[in-house]
C-alpha cells in the first residue's frame, strides 16, 4: 500500500508543480522574475492580476472567450437533443451512416478547416464575431453531444414514451416535461464536455477573430513589448484561464466520483 501512495504523491507533485510555478510567477513583478530565482515570491504583488482586470485589452479577451463558449454549449446541446432522440428511438434510412459521419467530424483535424472557415465566415460577413467561433466549434461539439446524449437516452426505456402518448401528451410536451428531466445528468455531462472542448480549442478561435471577438489565447500571444516578454502578466493571464475549469470541476466533483462508482464510463 505504501508504494502506491508514494507513487501517487510523486505523480500529483509532477501534475501540480508547473501550475504552481505559473501561479508563483503571476504574483511576482517582472523585475523579480528576471532577477534572482526564488521558489516563493519575495514581494508578492497582485499588480499583474490588476492589469488584467482593468486593461480592456486583457479582460475583453476573457469575456469574448466566455461568450462564444457559452453560445456554443447552448447551441450544441439544443441542436443535439432532437437528433439524439431520433438516433435512440428510430431507425431510418441512412441512420448508421449519418451517425458515423457525425463521429468523423469530431475527429477532423482543425488545421484542415482553417482556410475554408476563414473564407466562409468572411464571405458571409461573420468574421470576427462570437457567433462565428461558436458555430465553428459546433463542428466537433455537436457530434460529441449527440453521441453522449444518445447513450443516456438509450438508458430510458421506450415504455415511458409510449405511456406518455397513451396519457395524451403531445410530443413537445412529453419531451420537455417528462423526458428531459429523466436525462438531466446526461445533459449536464454533455454541457460539461462541450464547454470543455470549446474553452480549450484555440486554433479555430484565433483564426476566425481579429479584434472584436478575440479570445484570451490570442491576447496572450502578444505580450512581447519593447521591454521584453511580460512574463508576470502572461502568467497571471494563464492562471485566470484555469479558474473556470477548476471551478466547474469543483462543483461537479461529487457527480464525477459517483459516476465512476456506478460503473458508468
Amino acid at each position: 500500500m505504501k508504494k502506491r501512495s508514494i507513487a501517487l504523491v510523486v505523480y500529483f507533485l509532477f501534475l501540480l508543480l508547473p501550475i504552481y510555478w505559473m501561479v508563483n510567477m503571476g504574483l511576482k513583478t517582472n523585475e523579480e522574475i528576471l532577477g534572482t530565482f526564488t521558489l516563493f515570491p519575495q514581494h508578492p504583488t497582485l499588480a499583474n492580476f490588476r492589469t488584467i482586470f482593468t486593461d480592456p485589452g486583457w479582460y475583453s479577451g476573457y469575456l469574448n472567450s466566455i461568450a462564444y463558449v457559452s453560445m456554443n454549449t447552448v447551441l450544441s446541446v439544443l441542436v443535439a437533443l432532437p437528433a439524439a432522440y431520433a438516433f435512440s428511438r428510430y431507425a431510418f434510412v441512412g441512420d448508421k451512416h449519418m451517425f458515423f459521419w457525425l463521429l468523423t467530424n469530431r475527429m477532423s483535424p482543425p488545421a484542415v478547416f482553417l482556410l475554408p472557415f476563414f473564407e466562409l465566415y468572411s464571405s458571409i460577413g461573420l468574421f470576427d464575431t462570437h457567433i462565428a467561433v461558436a458555430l465553428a466549434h459546433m463542428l466537433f461539439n455537436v457530434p460529441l453531444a449527440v453521441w453522449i446524449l444518445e447513450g443516456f437516452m438509450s438508458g430510458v426505456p421506450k415504455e415511458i414514451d409510449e405511456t406518455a402518448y397513451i396519457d395524451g401528451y403531445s410530443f413537445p410536451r412529453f419531451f420537455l416535461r417528462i423526458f428531459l428531466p429523466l436525462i438531466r445528468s446526461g445533459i449536464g455531462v454533455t454541457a460539461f464536455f462541450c464547454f470543455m472542448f470549446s474553452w480549450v480549442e484555440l486554433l479555430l478561435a484565433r483564426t476566425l477573430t481579429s479584434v472584436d471577438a478575440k479570445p484570451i489565447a490570442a491576447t496572450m500571444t502578444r505580450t512581447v513589448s519593447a521591454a521584453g516578454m511580460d512574463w508576470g502578466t502572461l502568467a497571471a493571464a494563464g492562471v485566470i484561464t484555469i479558474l473556470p475549469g477548476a471551478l466547474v470541476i469543483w462543483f461537479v466533483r461529487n457527480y464525477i466520483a459517483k459516476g465512476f462508482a456506478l460503473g458508468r464510463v
Partner: protein
Amino acid sequence: MQKTENNKAWFLVLPVFVCVAFSALIPLMTVVNYSVQDILGPNQRVFVGTEWFLEVLQDEDLHDALIRQIEFSALILLIEIPLGIALALALPTQGWRTSLCLVLLALPLLIPWNVVGTIWQIFGRGDIGLGGYVVNALGVSYNYTAEPLDAWVTVVVMDIWHWTPLVVLLCYAGLRAIPDAYYQAARIDGASAWAVFRYIQLPKLRGVLLIAFLLRFMDSFMIYTEPFVLTGGGPGNSTTFLSQYLTTLAVGQFDVGPAAAFSIIYFLIILLLSFIFYTVIQNMGKGGAS
C-alpha cells in the same frame, strides 16, 4: 431497444445535419476545389487535376513532418497508456481522497491548450523556470530553445503531463465497473495480485483501453497548439508536426493548392482511423465482454 422504423425522424436530425453540413461539407468542398485548381488571379482559375497532390506527396519537408509525427505519436502512446493504467490502479476507491484525486486529475484537461504551452514554456526555461533551473542545477545541460533533443523531451513530457489524466480517468472508470465478485472469487482461488491484474483487470479494461488508445492516437496526430506555443516548431524544424506544417502551408505561405491537397490526404488518414475506431467500438458493443 427495438427502434421504430420511421423516416420522419429525419426532421429531428435536420438541425444537426444542417449545422454540421455547414461547418463541414461546405469547407470541405472548398478544400477539394482548391486542391485541383491553380489560382493565378481573382478570376483566373486553371484546373490542374492531380498536380498539387503529386507535388505534395513528393515534398521532402512533408515526409519529414510525417515521420516526426509518427515518432511523436508512437512515443507518447508507449508512455501514456501504461502510465495511465498504473495510476488508475493506484487511485483510492472510496472516501474524500477519491474526490480529491479525481478533481486534481481533471485539472490539466481543462486548461486551454495555449496556456498548457505557456505553462511549459515558462517551466522549462533555465533562467525563470523551476524545471529548467533544477535540471541545469543537477548538472545536465538543458535548453529546449536551442537543442532539438531537449525540445523533443520537453514536448513529450508536456503531452504526457497534459493528457495522461484522460487515460487515467477512462481506466479508472473501467476498473470501477468490475463487480466485486470477481475479486472475491480470485481471493478464494488464491490468486496473486499479478494474476488478478493479468486475468481479471486487464481483460475487463480491454474496451476502455481501446477507446483511450484510439482517442490519444488521433488527437496526437492532430496536435497543434501546445507544441506551437512551446517551441514554435523549432529549433529549426525539429518539433514541427503535421498540423503545424499544414497550417504554415495554408495560412503562412498561402500556398493554397498544395495546402488543400495535403488537407485532403490528412483528412483521409484520419477518416480511415475513425472508421476503424467506429467499427471496433460497434463490435465491442455487440460481441462485448463482461
